[in-house]
C-alpha cells in the first residue's frame, strides 16, 4: 500500500538536507529562516514536477540525504592522500670479494616482498609487511667443511614434492606491522617528570 507523505514531512526532510549538520546549527534566526525557505523551495519544486516522494521512496530519500552529508564530510578531508608502496624482488645475490681478489662468501636472497600502506591524515590503519622467501650464505673459502654456511633448514616431506617449491611453503623471514589510526583515547598516561 502506498501512502503520500504530507508536504510538512517533505519540508522537514528538505530542511534536514539543507542544514547538513546537527541541531547546533540553529543558532541564528536568519539561518533558520533561510533553511526553511530553501526547504520550502525544494518542496514546491518537487510538487510542481509531481515528484513528491511516495512512502516507499522515503527511505531512499533519507538515504540520499545521509549520502550527501557523507560527501560533504569527505570534501573536508579530500586533501588527504593515500600512500601505497610495494616492492617485489625475485632475487639478490651479493658476493663478498676481498682485495686479492678472491671470493669469501656469496649471499643469496630470494623472493623479497616489501609493502606498506598509509594515508597522510592517519585516519586509517597503516600497515607494513616484509617477507624474505629464502636466505642463503655460501662459503667460498677453499676446503670449506660446510659449503652452505646458512640456509633455511629443509622441512621433512619436502623431498616428495620436489625441489621446485622448496621455498614456497614458509618464508625465511616475515614481519608484519599494523599501526592503529591516530585517535584520541581518554586514557591518561603518567610519564616520569624527567621524560622530556
Amino acid at each position: 500500500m502506498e501512502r503520500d507523505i504530507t508536504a510538512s514531512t517533505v519540508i522537514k526532510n528538505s530542511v534536514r538536507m539543507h542544514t547538513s549538520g546537527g541541531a547546533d546549527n540553529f543558532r541564528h534566526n536568519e539561518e533558520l529562516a533561510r533553511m526553511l525557505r530553501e526547504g520550502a523551495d525544494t518542496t514546491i519544486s518537487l510538487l510542481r514536477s509531481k515528484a513528491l516522494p511516495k512512502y516507499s521512496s522515503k527511505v531512499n530519500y533519507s538515504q540520499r540525504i545521509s549520502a550527501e552529508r557523507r560527501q560533504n564530510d569527505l570534501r573536508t578531508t579530500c586533501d588527504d592522500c593515500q600512500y601505497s608502496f610495494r616492492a617485489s624482488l625475485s632475487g639478490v645475490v651479493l658476493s663478498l670479494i676481498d682485495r686479492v681478489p678472491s671470493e669469501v662468501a656469496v649471499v643469496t636472497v630470494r623472493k623479497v616482498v616489501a609493502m606498506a600502506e598509509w594515508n597522510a591524515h592517519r585516519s586509517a590503519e597503516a600497515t607494513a609487511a616484509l617477507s624474505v622467501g629464502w636466505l642463503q650464505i655460501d662459503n667460498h673459502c677453499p676446503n670449506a667443511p660446510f659449503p652452505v654456511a646458512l640456509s633455511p633448514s629443509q622441512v621433512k616431506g619436502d623431498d616428495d614434492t620436489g625441489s621446485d617449491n622448496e621455498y614456497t611453503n614458509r618464508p625465511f623471514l616475515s614481519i608484519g606491522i599494523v599501526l592503529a589510526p591516530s585517535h584520541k583515547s581518554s586514557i591518561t598516561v603518567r610519564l616520569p617528570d624527567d621524560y622530556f
Partner: protein
Amino acid sequence: MISILQCLEGVTISLSDISLGSDLALVMRIQHHLLGILSHLDRSKDQKEIIEAQNIVLTKDIWQFPDLTQILTLKSVSKKSGSKMMYFEGITILPFTLKLSVAPSVALTSAQAALEGPEAGAIHAAVRKGDLLIGGKADGVVGVKIGSKNRTAMAVIRGIFKSILVDSLLRCDDVSLNFSGLAVRNHLSTIPQLKTFIGLHYLSLLKSNVPALLGSLAAFGNPVGLIRGFGDGVT
C-alpha cells in the same frame, strides 16, 4: 601528563628454521672483510677532509665514496630524539629452531694459499693452529694471532695441545637450539626498552640451550646426537 601515544595494533615476526654450518676460518675472513670495509670508509673520510682542508681545486673527476658513517650517525641521532612512549597491543615472535654445526677448518694447500693471497692464507693457518685472541686484544670480537711460529720444543708441544683442544671444542654436529616464541600483549614502553626486553628473552633462551650445546660437542662424544640417532632409527 597526557601525551599522544603511537599505538601499534600488531607486530608479528616469523622466522623459519635455520641451519647454520660454519668453521672459524669463514667467520674470521668475513670479519676481516667487514673490518676492511670499515677502515676503508674511515680512510676515504680522512682523504675527503684533507682535500677539503687544502681546498684543492680538482681538475680530475674523482668519484668519492659516499660517507656512510655520517649518514648512519645522522639517522641514529634522529632516532634518538624519537624515542617516544609507544603502546603495543600485541607483539608476536614465532618460535624457531637453529641447527648449528661447527667444524674445524681444513688447512690450505700451498697452491690454494697462493691463489687466496697471503692475508687469507695467514688467517687459515692461524685458525688451524688455534691461535685465538678473544676480546680486548683482537680487532673484532674474535681475533687470531697471525704469523706466530713455534721455535722451541716446548712451544711445539704446547701448540699441538692447543690445536687439539681448539679442534675438539669447536666441533659439533647439528645441535638443535630451540628458541621459543615471544608474545607480549598490551605493553607500554619505548623502543629501547622493548629492545632490551627482547634481548633478555633471547639471552635467557641461549642459556637454557647450553646443555644441548655441551651435549652435542664432539669432545664429549656427542651424547645428544647419539640419543637423537637412536630415536630417529626406532621411529
